[in-house]
């Protein structure tokens, strides 16, 4: 992971963070729906310095066959980081961290996707992190929702995701890599704004009960900002002039 700069000011006296953002301000977010020819649906997201590509296939036949379920379709998610995506080269084999993140993203998407309409099939979501800079799981989840919608798979809602956290004793939105390394707490949240349901939630770091409640609120508000950008990405492709 990146080196820690002991002199870095995480939050100055005017409430401005180390990368110039305000407390409740997310990093720059750009989402593009589509872009891959062969995938049934795809999306590309830039979330600060994170660059992530998502491709969706399916509903399609399940291989190996014993994984299929006669009552419902299944969702399979692979979250993978490229060897060149982080400071020091990462071993390309899936790490325990990547396996866990794949699982939590899968469980965050499952409530949104109407898999029961497609028994015996699989929907595969492939997430490739091209460049990582803190908060990849939230960026990946947001992009995966757009890619699933782009694939035309029936959904109850899109999952929008953003982290909140505690930096310099203050609850802030969208913790970046420096803040995560030096900060006090990081809470990634995945949220379906229409259904008002939290589908991804993790925390590491110490929070008082009051900070905990506030952190969830700040994160949910952040997800709503991401949600608007997700919708715009789909509108641009299907109704705008940015389509391809």
């Amino acid at each position: 992971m990146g080196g820690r700069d002991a002199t870095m000011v995480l939050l100055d006296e005017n409430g401005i963070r180390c990368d110039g953002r305000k407390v409740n301000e997310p990093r720059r977010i750009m989402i593009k729906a589509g872009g891959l020819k062969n995938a049934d649906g795809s999306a590309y997201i830039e979330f600060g310095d994170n660059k992530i590509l998502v491709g969706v296939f399916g509903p399609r036949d399940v291989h190996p066959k014993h994984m299929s379920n006669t009552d419902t379709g299944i969702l399979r998610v692979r979250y993978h980081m490229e060897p060149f995506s982080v400071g020091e080269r990462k071993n390309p084999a899936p790490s325990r961290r990547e396996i866990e993140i794949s699982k939590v993203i899968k469980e965050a998407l499952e409530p949104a996707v109407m898999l029961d309409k497609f028994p015996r099939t699989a929907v595969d979501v492939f997430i490739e992190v091209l460049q990582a800079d803190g908060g990849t799981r939230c960026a990946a989840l947001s992009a995966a929702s757009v890619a699933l919608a782009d694939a035309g798979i029936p959904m109850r809602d899109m999952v929008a995701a953003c982290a909140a956290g505690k930096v310099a004793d203050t609850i802030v939105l969208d913790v970046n890599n420096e803040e995560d390394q030096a900060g006090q707490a990081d809470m990634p949240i995945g949220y379906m704004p229409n259904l008002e349901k939290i589908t991804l939630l993790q925390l590491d770091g110490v929070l008082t009960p009051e900070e905990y409640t506030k952190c969830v609120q700040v994160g949910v508000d952040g997800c709503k900002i991401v949600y608007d950008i997700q919708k715009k990405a789909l509108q641009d492709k299907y109704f705008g002039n940015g389509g391809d």
Partner: protein
Amino acid sequence: MTSSVLDDLKKSQILELLEQGKRVDGRALDEPREISIETNAIPKANGSARVRLGETEVICGVKIQPDRPFPDMGDKGIFICTAELLPLSHPTVETGPPGPDVIELARVVDRGIRESHMIDVSQLVIEKNKSVVGVFADNVVVDYDGNLFDACSYAATAALLSSKTPKWNWVDDTPTLVEGEETPVPIATIPVSVTMAKIGNHIIVDPNGDEWASMDSRITITTDSDGNICALQKGGSDGFSQDDINRCGEISIHVGAKIREKLKQAQMVGQ
């Protein structure tokens, strides 16, 4: 542990009872199962515990040995916690590399203890940047009846509370054991994880095996001795409302406080 017709029947029964505010085993919704803790169960380990949470049983052994520090953490000792399901714990468990469920289990248990800063790793340095003390807490599940997250967390915490670390001096560029000098592992706080399952619109604490197979989603929250929340993991294929999340936070603090007392008692009995 795949779903079957039997599981569907069990689920409808569990849900029916919950509608009346009852649980299959007669517990209150926020009542964990009986916890029994036996410390120093494995004398050859530096610390150990055998924990039963209802019918779920976990053994944790702590091994403490000199190790090289992580490159950017030369002034800190190492703490690692693992968890493994033994094939004798359930008919569906097979040998081989761990699947995503077990990897998540081990990482969540490790994260809860690590993020609480239970072990003061700054006191576990033999020679800065060269040699530190490594504390390894390895959990093995020997019998399965749901909620391995909490069972493993209590076993690891109880084992760490009972652990004694040997002393090493830096002599001739190697860590050298000082015979007969053992001190308790430096403990800063006692983390307690509380796992809750959501079944229908009901939230229950410490789901047993049948409840585990029936749940829609779950949440594991770890609190420290000061009543702060220090780690959390949501799992399962459904979501929680924001109110649910806030309520689960409160439950984890008050249920956790009671369990913390049990862990302290076990530590005193062990001494």
